């Protein structure tokens, strides 16, 4: 380990990649881990972060930013299969994150135990859940003498937080995935009230700046409508939670305004999501003003008028696929296996049908490969299927784009910025762009892009006085 006045940042995952977020912070003998995710393009042991590089019994705390699998799904393995519990380490996440994490993991265990990929059992999962300490946004939490943190809203998905961490006086802001745009149900990420020494920030979209919310929504609804008009089916592969709720809010509203669509069903194919709807309803108070005021008027925005659940019977995919035009939101978002994959294979050969990719697609998954619009692809059974279905990408994933990220990075004013959760080329461009912005303004800000297990050592001059953060 480096000397005591040096902060070491080691990525066990999400270093120049998107997936399996896991960031280890070491300072003055304390060890903190932010996020414990899996890599969606891999399965089993290979999907875990590089956890062999750490003695987990020495960890003081694990902080999980949000319920997405690429940030949270390795937690069970770490708490139950490593020596983490031999130490004094604690695990924290927000109340809604914990509530949804439970359902996400039940689903994860169910889908992965069907293969030889099962990393842990349902019992392990329950043990792990029991050890999670739920916290609230803006609450000051003292982990142990010398370590405290405050969660701030990060937008992105229900319960998502960034953590403002204080280790022996050194302040680090770890954003996790975040959004600076108020969408239909969530507040946007907050700018923490104090200036941290180090900012560890996601860079999913690199230097790409997206279109405006209005343009995006109208492009999306117009496209859906035109696919229906040409007699096709619309497939929206999406994760059961998070963006799905956002898309449902948009579609429900559009359907309301277009009576000609009332006989066209919109299916939401997720048992998991049905369970989680209760969590969404419980945490309406953490959402934005639009949602809260509708709820206050007894107009529960999460009771959709034009959305139907798919029948719980086996083979529903085939039935719906053979039926009249419809819209289906099906998981998983990357179409690796499961309902979205099955529907895709059934609909791919017909040019009337349309596929709309609405989220960020991770390298190595079908959702990413299909964007090159190949003439054909290999089905799960190994046969070759022609692709005539139209493919469009309209991203609603609640990540900051370049305009929002660069503005946030400038406002945070940290002396060191560590870019994580981005592919290496995009991250490299973002670093170059930020470096030239800071140079123009004659500000000395260092931008780092560590690879996995390439430890970044940052030295800080002068004594840090350990004191509580916040007001």
């Amino acid at each position, binding site marked *: 380990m480096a000397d005591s006045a040096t902060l070491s940042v080691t990525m066990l995952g999400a270093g120049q990649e998107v997936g399996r977020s896991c960031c280890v912070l070491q300072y003055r003998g304390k060890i903190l881990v932010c996020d414990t995710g899996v890599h969606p393009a891999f399965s*089993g042991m290979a999907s875990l972060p*590089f956890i*062999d590089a750490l003695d987990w019994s020495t960890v003081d705390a694990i902080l999980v930013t949000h319920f997405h699998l690429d940030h949270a799904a390795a937690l069970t393995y770490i708490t139950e299969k490593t020596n983490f519990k031999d130490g004094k380490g604690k695990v924290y996440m927000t109340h809604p994150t914990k509530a949804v994490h439970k359902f996400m993991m039940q689903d994860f265990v169910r889908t992965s135990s069907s293969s030889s990929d099962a990393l842990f059992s349902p019992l392990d999962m329950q043990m792990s859940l029991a050890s999670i300490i739920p916290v609230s946004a803006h609450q000051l939490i003292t982990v142990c003498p010398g370590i405290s943190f405050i969660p701030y809203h990060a937008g992105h998905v229900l319960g998502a937080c960034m953590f403002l961490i204080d280790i022996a006086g050194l302040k680090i802001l770890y954003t996790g995935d975040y959004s600076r745009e108020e969408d239909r149900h969530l507040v946007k990420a907050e700018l923490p009230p104090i200036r941290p020494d180090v900012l560890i920030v996601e860079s999913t979209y690199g230097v790409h700046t997206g279109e405006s919310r209005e343009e995006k929504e109208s492009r999306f609804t117009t496209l859906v409508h035109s696919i229906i008009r040409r007699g096709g089916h619309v497939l929206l592969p999406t994760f059961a939670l998070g963006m799905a709720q956002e898309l449902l809010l948009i579609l429900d509203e559009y359907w309301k305004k277009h009576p000609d669509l009332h006989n066209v069903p919109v299916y939401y194919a997720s048992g998991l999501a049905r369970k989680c709807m209760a969590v969404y309803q419980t945490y309406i108070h953490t959402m934005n003003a639009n949602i809260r005021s509708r709820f206050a008027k007894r107009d529960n925005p999460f009771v959709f008028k034009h959305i139907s659940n798919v029948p719980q019977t086996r083979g529903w995919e085939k039935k719906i696929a053979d039926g009249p035009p419809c819209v289906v939101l099906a998981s998983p978002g990357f179409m690796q296996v499961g309902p979205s994959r099955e529907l895709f294979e059934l609909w791919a050969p017909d040019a009337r049908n349309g596929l709309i990719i609405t989220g960020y697609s991770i390298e190595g998954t079908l959702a990413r490969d299909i964007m090159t619009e190949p003439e054909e692809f290999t089905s799960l059974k190994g046969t070759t299927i022609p692709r005539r279905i139209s493919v469009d990408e309209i991203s609603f994933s609640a990540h900051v784009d370049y305009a929002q990220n660069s503005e946030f990075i400038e406002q945070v004013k940290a002396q060191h910025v560590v870019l994580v959760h981005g592919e290496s080329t995009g991250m490299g461009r973002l670093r170059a762009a930020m470096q030239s912005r800071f140079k123009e303004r004659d500000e000395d800000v260092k931008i780092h892009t560590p690879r996995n297990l390439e430890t970044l050592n940052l030295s800080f001059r002068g004594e840090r006085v350990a004191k509580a953060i916040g007001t």
Partner: protein
Amino acid sequence: MASSVFYKFSSQKNESRVTFDGTGISVFDLKREIILANNMGKANDFDLYVYDAATKQEYKDDSTIIPRSSSVVVKRLPASRPGRGKASMYISGAAPALPTSEPVQRSGSSAPTWHKGAMSKRFDGKEEMPSSSIPPMNPITKSST
């Protein structure tokens, strides 16, 4: 009676074992069994490192024979060249010549797995099952818990 070598990923609490016939197993074969048993063959982002559990010395040479009943520690670390992890090399069957007169005998049940690998595809174009390149969990390796 089959022989065993016990292994533990360095972050793991519990040991697992690889069983085989003979008095030892090569580092190459051990890595292959571990990759297969943990279904890691598809990932190209890591390399495996094997260490003696007591001395913490790395077994750098894949042809080294680890005596039966030994305990080793395994680390899965990022591939030295990103995206060029060596996992597939271990399971594709491209074994280097073992400098030992005592080849490791596989037990009968594992043999079909071995021959159903990528090699056999070349001889039988009809066998298009994608799963044929991903052998099922090797029955000779099982977790001790």
